[in-house]
């Protein structure tokens, strides 16, 4: 990287040209570009500015961060890495292994991150013992959302097992309601899949199958059952689901066309935006089974030249994990703070439920990373699994075949 130092400096000069004072500097690459997301990031920018920093915004949306990752690779290869980048899960460690991440341990230790973050989440922020990323929030993935009126009209309770869910769904189908609102995009298929794995196999099985990629677990009978349940769920989805955006599926639940949706807690934002009230108009519950699948957004700091930029990184890391930002940001975004010492009085019941479960599952060891949202596995492995899941869900592949393909795809992904 040293070789390209001169180039970096010269291009940075262009970027930095606007601010003459050498206060803390940060160019932030993220994919929170629209509506509530953007406003949430703006909170961070305001705090950063209030502390004398100057923030350069580098938003790249699309494909759940794919486009941003494309841009990031190009920037890193050209020796012109952004100061801070929205990164999550094992991707943080992957980038660390490429030797391009900065060490922010000094900030983390000064701020006592280790004491306020749940251990499994803190694990994601560390690279070989040093702190290399700052967590922003915790999204819970294994949520099931329901239209309160529809459930009431059909005399249905929130299901706590998949069998209950299937029974409820059959009833709803008979009543002419679409049981499950779903968008047929690979990542949504994967989201449903992982909640089924968690529900049917339990936290331990989830850990073995989708985190450790244990071949035995992948080819086990339990996994066959998981695919059977996926096939059953396919029957509860309307026929126009393919390619549908998740928020359109949410809208179906909102207007009573469908009863349930399995989606992370960002779906709540869509309900709230439409003026619906949690607990009254719509219900939230964890998907059938134990455990908690988290999706933690975080920012990693890249190796950059220049004291003003390094100061920017430290300031940014400090602010991100500080209680004030954690609270304001997550109120906006629908998720919950990553740190456990933030008062949740202002948060709604779903968020409170989420926080409560996070605490209890953390103690029980069933606080697990979401594979579908890139928390559990590296890109090539999670991608290989998603390929099989989505192929199975969108065809008439048998569960036995799916299990075989799953094992083969995982083996071929290293």
């Amino acid at each position, binding site marked *: 990287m040293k070789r390209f130092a001169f180039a970096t400096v010269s291009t940075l000069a262009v970027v930095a040209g606007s601010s003459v004072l050498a206060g803390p500097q940060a160019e932030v690459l993220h994919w929170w570009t629209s509506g509530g997301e953007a406003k949430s990031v703006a909170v961070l920018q305001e705090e950063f500015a209030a502390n004398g920093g100057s923030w350069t915004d580098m938003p790249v949306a699309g494909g759940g961060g*794919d486009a941003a990752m494309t841009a990031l690779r190009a920037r890193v290869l050209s020796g012109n890495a952004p100061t801070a980048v929205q990164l999550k899960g094992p991707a943080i460690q992957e980038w660390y292994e490429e030797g391009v991440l900065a060490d922010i341990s000094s900030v983390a230790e000064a701020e006592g991150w280790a004491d306020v973050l749940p251990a499994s989440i803190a694990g994601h922020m560390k690279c070989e013992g040093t702190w290399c990323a700052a967590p922003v929030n915790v999204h819970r993935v294994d949520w099931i959302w329901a239209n309160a009126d529809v459930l009431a009209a059909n005399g249905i309770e929130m299901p706590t097992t998949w069998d209950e869910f299937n029974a409820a769904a059959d009833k709803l189908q008979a009543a002419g309601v679409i049981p499950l609102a779903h968008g047929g995009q690979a990542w949504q298929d994967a989201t449903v899949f992982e909640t089924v794995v968690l529900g049917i196999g339990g936290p331990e099985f989830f850990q073995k199958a989708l985190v450790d990629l244990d071949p035995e677990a992948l080819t086990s009978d339990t996994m066959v059952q998981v695919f059977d349940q996926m096939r059953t769920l396919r029957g509860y989805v309307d026929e126009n689901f393919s390619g549908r955006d998740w928020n359109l599926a949410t809208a179906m639940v909102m207007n009573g066309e469908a009863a349930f949706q399995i989606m992370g807690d960002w779906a709540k934002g869509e309900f709230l935006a439409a003026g619906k009230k949690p607990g009254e108009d719509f219900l939230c519950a964890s998907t059938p089974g134990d455990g908690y699948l988290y999706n933690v957004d975080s920012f990693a700091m890249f190796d950059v030249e220049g004291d003003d930029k390094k100061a920017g990184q430290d300031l940014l890391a400090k602010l991100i994990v500080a209680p004030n930002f954690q609270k304001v940001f997550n109120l906006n975004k629908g998720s919950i703070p990553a740190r456990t010492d933030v008062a949740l009085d202002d948060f709604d019941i779903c968020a409170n439920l989420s926080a409560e479960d996070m605490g209890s599952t953390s103690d029980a060891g069933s606080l697990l990373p979401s594979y579908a949202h890139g928390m559990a596995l590296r890109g090539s492995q999670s991608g290989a699994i998603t390929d099989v899941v989505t192929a199975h869900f969108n065809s008439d592949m048998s569960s036995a075949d799916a299990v075989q393909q799953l094992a083969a795809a995982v083996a071929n992904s290293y």
Partner: protein
Amino acid sequence: MSEWLENHLPKVVLAPSFIAVLIFVYGFIGWTAWVSLTRSKLLPKYEIKGFIQYERLFDSPRWDTAINNLYIFGALFIVIAMVLGLLLAILLDQKIRVEGAIRTIYLYPMALSMIVTGTAWKWILNPGLGIESMVQGWGFTNFEFDWLVNPDYAIYTIVMAAIWQSSGFVMALFLAGLRSVDGEIIKAAQVDGIPTWRIYTAIIIPSMAPIFLSAFIVLAHLAIKSFDLVIALTGGGPGYATDLPATYMYAMAFSRGDIGQAASSAMIMMLVVFAIVVPYLYSELRAKND
């Protein structure tokens, strides 16, 4: 010195472009070939590890789908776009009163990127939102048009949208060709009492052979590069039923962090391009050299 410059100016002028192409096309192809032999993951690495990436590629059912889709998509797209383009050109060539306006309507999709039009297409083709529900709303309740969500037919919706985007351009090419055919030959044929359709099939169309070739090449290049289209319309789905090599490669390189795998798929793509383009270049330069 100035004498030398004057004599060598053509070469001097061509040199920068040539060098640029050498580096930025061939150098990069070489780079890709090299990387395809490594186990590069998130970022490129340069330690050669053999043909493992190609083995992985050919073991991947998703790549099989992508290649098969390229054949289906490529063949249908090229043939239909050409036939449609020719048909439209002939229709427009009949002294149409509002030719300018119609031509613009046919041509404009080329002006818009698929990022822009993809969403609209997605809605139109979606059974619950678009054509199917509209026609059913008219009372034809048995009408079905669910290709977008049917894994076996979704690739054909990609073909539809691709044709929508490119056939106007092909029409323009053919229209230009029709306008440049020697009028005297046609008059002679008319005097001989040859029916109009025969004049087209027997005289005009055969004389446009070079345009067919150009159109073929433009379309083939679009087919191979098709990327935005798939991303915007189906995102490769349902499942990965509409994956194409270009989307496969992009997914591997940028969302999966599997650059070695992406490079090997790129090399296979390049071979396909090579097989199509080289014969064209050969004939093109042969014919025009004399």
